[in-house]
């Protein structure tokens, strides 16, 4: 556990969480009693080998899956007591997602993809468009606002996905292997972009990766192995992304 945040209410609190999957007759234990807190403004990486439980942990934090046991508290609310509709609203308001495979809507342009979370929330098209345009500019893709996903490179698509994740000004952005489908240079650019946005917009970023090269400059490393956190440490080598109270 990261002691630097003692006394402050965490954005996300995971308590004794387990997650099991049924694969035919076999039960796979993806998470085995995980405890974790994520605080506002953090820039954290969950890393570990494939099958260590990174995605399962991110899914629970992102409210797109529920634990087999234990508690997941997001923004002070125990998610076990929240209805499906309320969970959808929480995802829209508190969480931004960046997927490994980008998951942009193929029939929408870059600008429309970024607008989408706001429009799901019910924000008017004009306001959503204006906010989306601003975000696209911040990720350096203003010139590709009218392009469809199939007209963009992988790096560009992931930038659009990051803009989409940020457009609702969420409390936390979760990125699951955001660089896995990108070449190493582009992957590093994406991590740099996330770090820059964390610094400038004070958005909490948590990303999962199996690539230790991407951990440079990441303040908090949460290491997972076989469904348990084996290491959770902060470094201050560069880019102070969190200032304790």
């Amino acid at each position, binding site marked *: 556990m990261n002691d630097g945040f003692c006394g402050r209410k965490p954005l996300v609190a995971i308590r004794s969480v387990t997650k099991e999957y049924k694969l035919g007759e076999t039960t796979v234990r993806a998470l085995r009693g995980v405890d974790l807190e994520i605080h506002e403004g953090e820039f954290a990486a969950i890393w570990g080998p494939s099958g260590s439980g990174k995605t399962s942990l991110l*899914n629970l934090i*992102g409210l*797109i*899956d529920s634990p087999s046991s234990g508690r997941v508290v997001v923004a002070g609310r125990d998610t076990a007591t929240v209805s*499906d*509709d309320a969970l*959808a*609203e929480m*995802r*829209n*308001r508190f969480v931004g*997602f960046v*997927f490994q495979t980008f*998951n942009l*809507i*193929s*029939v*929408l342009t870059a600008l*429309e993809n970024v*607008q*989408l*979370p706001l*429009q*799901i*929330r019910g924000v008017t*098209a004009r306001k959503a468009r204006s906010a989306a345009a601003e975000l696209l500019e911040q990720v350096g893709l203003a010139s590709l606002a009218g392009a469809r996903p199939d007209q963009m490179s992988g790096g560009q698509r992931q930038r659009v996905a990051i803009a*989409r994740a940020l457009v*609702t000004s969420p409390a936390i952005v979760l990125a699951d292997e955001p660089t896995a489908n990108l070449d190493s240079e582009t992957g590093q650019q994406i991590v740099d972009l996330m770090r820059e946005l964390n610094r400038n917009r004070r958005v909490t970023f948590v990303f999962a990766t199996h690539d230790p090269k991407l951990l440079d400059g990441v303040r908090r490393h949460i290491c997972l192995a076989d469904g348990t956190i084996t290491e959770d440490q902060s470094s201050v080598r560069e880019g102070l992304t969190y200032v304790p109270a």
Partner: protein
Amino acid sequence: MYLLKMAARNIRKNFRRSLFTILAMGLGFASICIFSGYIHNVYTGLSEQAVHGEGLGHLTLVKKGYFENSSLDAKKYLLTKDELARIGPILSADSGVTLWTPRLAVEGLISNGRNSMIFMGEGIVPEQEDILRAQYRPDRGGMLDPAKPTAIVVSSDLARLLGLKTGANTVVFTTTFDGEANALDADIGSIYNTGIAATNDKTILIPLAFTRRLLDTDGADRLRILLRNIEDTDEARTRLATKLSRIGIPIELRTWKQLSTFYVQVKDLFDMIFIFIFSIVAVIVVMSITNTMSMTVIERTREIGTLRALGMKRRQTVVLFSLEAMVLAAAGCAAGCAVTLAVCGVVSLLGITYVPPNTSDHVPLLVDFVFGWVVVVFFSLLLLAAGAAYIPSAGASRTRIVDALGHV
């Protein structure tokens, strides 16, 4: 609005599949609208035939019990001259009534001097017949000449059987209401086609005054009432019955639909066929949309997972796919509407005629473009399409988000 945009773009993306669905919907829509347009034309023709051709008017006023018992005691159910004088002003004062005219049924034998045949006659007021007929099928003839008080009109099959021609002399035999035999000479004023095979060999039209002389009465057994609008028939019936109840004469009013059993039978038959056709089309539409949307939903499971992860609620994803189905249906209906309009126009231009059952002459084959029906069918198919999309999309919306995101 963004859901509609996504729906429209996804339809365009899957152009070929969408096109087949639209064509299936369009053909279904057109078949319903063309058939409903045809039966609308038939209903209109039959109602005009009943009201004006048969001279039923919109309403018929009789003494209470006339339809059930007058064949046994016709005199008892006659409207006397005094009663007519009391009823007439009430009818004339009603703003919805354009004409009321007395009628008197007569039955007997008509002879050419050598042979006789049974006739069913109708005593009518020649001057009012023009209005009642409202120029309905003037080609059929059958108008009495007010200047010729003994001239009668004979149905064409009856005239043919007796060899009667216009201008020929004939003798009409009957019995008066008191049971005495009576015969009067008459002239054949004209020959006409009743339009109904069952009556075209026995019907004659006689001036009312001449009929009264034959039956030795000054009354009438029925009053035909013509209204300004056929749609007001039921309302006018209630209104007039209320007004007439105050004068203390036991009367009843029947509508043209109640008296025209042929119209009712044909309408019931066509309505049944329409329901049958509509049901078949509905099944085709539902299956076509369900098939299309099922494939779409499977292909876009990952998209559904993404949308749900971004905060879209389950019902919003259902709305998204229902909208897509409705856009498909709307496009199909628009195509079907164009086909319907084209068929209406072409059929009208071709000038096809046919002899319907129970009629004695040709009628034109026409298909009406019934806007009200088109709108009803349009929205019905839209709702059906939305319902058909509900099943696969509701199922997909219940898929766990992580499973949907991992769908390949």
